[in-house]
């Protein structure tokens, strides 16, 4: 158990005061002597509370917990003197338990702060650069973009960059929660925060340290607490009303019943009612709620980060738990965004000939479909064979290859050229090929579905998401095919990039109860991400745009993480509500029992501190994401 100096001091005071109370219990004393003896432990344990209350009153801040504790304990002491009972133990005990509660709370908070900062210990303090043949250790902030840094086995990558020499495997688990190491070679991009496992690598930095992945993630997690959820706002507003309300109730309890009794000609029993009122004051502290709710969110966001799910604020964690519709942008989320030629349906020309001509015609296009055609062809493109390339945006290209007029593109291009193109029963994108005006067949190109896509949709349905929707620019047949193989409920196909926002708006319910999440890969879909109730960006390692635009960032590109994020958020929200109901329930019962004189001050303080301890322990549970 490690404590700060402040915590150690409080701990010492708690022990001393507790021992003194026990010893005093066995020393018979009366009158003034007894009063003085008991005031020693009272002041030992409570002097700072008394001072703070006095100082706050001087600054015009009356209703805080220090003030309440002072009124309650000083009142109990005054009653003991007035009644002549000499029972000061109660007042000392209330102060003592209050301090124990505060101590525990401080300890729990600093402990969870520490475990989160350990969890987030992904930003190395130093970087190695080579200078005149020897390694020099420098501050990552001093490394200019484009410098070569050296990362030895066992070290963390300090700055984002590209591997220039060396090969190794990287442990990305701190960023993505993915336990399997990733092997890297020359030319691969590496994100800061990964641990280099096996070989020494040289990296040419592409960013400054402050702009690198590790720094961005840390900033994001640390700032998450600044965006408060509605439950947190509720608690803040509630405690602002609760404390004064209970104080007024206490005052009423102290004055009204005795006055009524007087009016009715009965004995007023002042001390009895004042005692009940003081008990009220002890219960009036909303500590358990005030500490445990933000702590739950903090722990929940921290626990999710460990799993590679970065949530930008408590409000988004709360929103995530209410998601009933999940909208996927197909490319890059459910599919890999990498196209492959699945089939070649050729006419008279042989298969390789058709592919070769298509590859040449598309040679200068950077479109992923064009790249997939080139990859599918066995030969190598010879640019000398190509002449007169003309692009038709959204349709295809025409070019002269070996002096043949080759047209490669979709149905629209074919009808523009007056060539009849047959349809196809197969799924995927069709790329037609025509040579010298005659139809020579088509290539069936499709995106590769991610291995976990089906499991991800199933997991979402299992976790209570009612609708999974897919948005895509593909033609309807192809989209429907993909959707039914994945178990998607609804498809919106043939969308242009600009249509996606309106498609999403059509799906959003707007009542604020069943929320809609949009999952995209962060490329070209920033407007949709920000329009959705919860924007989830996927595969964000190294993509700044995605981190900026989204509310929830999944560090790797596994679609299963969407369901995981929703489950984690639900778990956190359940803990939050457990704490709210438990704390308010126990307080309510104690207030009632106190009003009827059944609960005494001992019970009140036990309830207060006990509820707080249990609520805090429950809150810390949110940190352990575990197997949810």
């Amino acid at each position, binding site marked *: 158990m490690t404590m700060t100096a402040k915590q150690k001091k409080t701990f010492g005071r708690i022990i001393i005061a507790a021992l003194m109370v026990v010893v005093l219990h066995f020393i018979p004393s009366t009158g003034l002597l007894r009063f003085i003896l008991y005031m020693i432990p009272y002041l030992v344990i409570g002097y700072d509370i008394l001072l703070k209350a006095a100082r*706050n009153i001087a600054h015009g*801040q009356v209703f805080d917990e220090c003030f309440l504790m002072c009124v309650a304990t000083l009142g109990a002491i005054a009653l003991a003197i007035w009644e002549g009972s000499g029972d000061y133990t109660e007042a000392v005990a209330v102060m003592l338990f209050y301090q124990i509660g505060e101590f525990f709370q*401080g300890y729990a908070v600093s402990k969870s*702060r520490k475990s989160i900062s350990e969890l987030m210990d992904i930003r190395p303090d130093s970087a190695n650069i080579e200078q005149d043949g020897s390694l020099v250790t420098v501050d990552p902030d001093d490394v200019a973009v484009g410098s070569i840094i050296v990362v030895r086995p066992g070290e963390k990558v300090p700055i984002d960059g590209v591997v220039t020499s060396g090969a190794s495997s990287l442990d990305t688990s701190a960023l993505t929660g993915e336990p399997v190491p990733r092997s890297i070679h020359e030319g691969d991009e590496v994100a800061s925060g990964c641990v280099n496992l096996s070989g020494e690598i040289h990296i040419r930095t592409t960013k400054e340290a402050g702009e690198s992945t590790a720094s961005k993630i840390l900033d994001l997690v640390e*700032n998450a*607490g600044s965006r408060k959820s509605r439950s947190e706002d509720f608690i803040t507003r509630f*405690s602002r009303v609760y404390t004064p309300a209970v104080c007024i109730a206490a005052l009423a309890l102290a004055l009204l019943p005795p006055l009524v009794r007087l009016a009715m000609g009965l004995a007023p029993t002042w001390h009895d009612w004042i005692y009940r009122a003081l008990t009220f004051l002890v219960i009036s502290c909303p500590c358990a709620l*005030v500490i445990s709710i*933000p*702590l739950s969110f903090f722990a929940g966001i921290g626990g999710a980060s460990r799993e590679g799910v970065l949530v930008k604020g408590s409000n988004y964690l709360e929103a995530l738990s209410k998601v009933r519709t999940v909208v996927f942008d197909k490319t890059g989320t459910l599919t890999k965004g990498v196209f492959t030629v699945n089939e070649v349906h050729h006419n008279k020309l042989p298969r390789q000939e058709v592919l070769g001509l298509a590859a040449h015609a598309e040679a200068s296009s950077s479109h992923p479909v064009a790249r997939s055609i080139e990859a599918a062809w066995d030969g190598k493109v010879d640019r000398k064979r190509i002449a007169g390339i003309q692009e038709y945006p959204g349709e295809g290209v025409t070019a002269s290859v070996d002096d043949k007029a080759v047209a490669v593109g979709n149905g629209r291009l074919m009808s523009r050229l007056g060539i009849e193109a047959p349809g196809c029963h197969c799924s995927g994108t069709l790329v037609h090929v025509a040579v010298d005006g005659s139809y020579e067949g088509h290539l069936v190109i499709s995106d590769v579905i991610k291995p976990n896509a089906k499991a991800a949709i199933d997991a979402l349905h299992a976790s209570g998401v009612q609708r999974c929707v897919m948005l895509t620019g593909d033609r309807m047949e192809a989209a429907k095919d993909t959707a039914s193989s994945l178990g998607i409920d609804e498809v919106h196909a043939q969308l242009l990039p600009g249509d996606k926002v309106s498609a999403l708006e059509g799906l959003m319910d707007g009542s604020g109860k069943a929320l809609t999440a949009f999952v995209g890969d962060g490329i070209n879909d920033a407007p949709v991400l920000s329009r959705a109730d919860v924007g989830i960006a996927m595969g964000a390692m190294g993509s700044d745009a995605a981190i900026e635009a989204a509310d929830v960032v999944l560090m790797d590109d596994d679609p299963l993480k969407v369901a995981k994020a929703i489950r984690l958020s639900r778990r956190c929200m359940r803990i939050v509500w457990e704490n709210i109901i438990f704390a308010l329930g126990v307080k309510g019962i104690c207030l009632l029992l106190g009003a009827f004189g059944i609960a005494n001050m001992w019970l009140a303080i036990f309830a207060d501190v006990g509820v707080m301890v249990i609520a805090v322990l429950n809150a810390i549970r949110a940190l352990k994401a575990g197997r949810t």
Partner: protein
Amino acid sequence: MTRNYKIDVDCPACAAKMEAAAKKVEGVKDAVVNFMALKMKVDFEEGTDPGAVMPSVRKACKRVEADCEVFI
């Protein structure tokens, strides 16, 4: 302009008090205290010098919560 400052404070209620106090300081457009991360994010009014404003923010916080600290 927004800047982050480290703070030290014991309880969330005190952190809320600090936040309210910091918001009222002249030159501060908005302030958010994050109790869990022990940070204060201050958004300054256009054309104000944070170095000149922060001592009064610290003073205002100390006034409502004597045990707190703002590391400028």
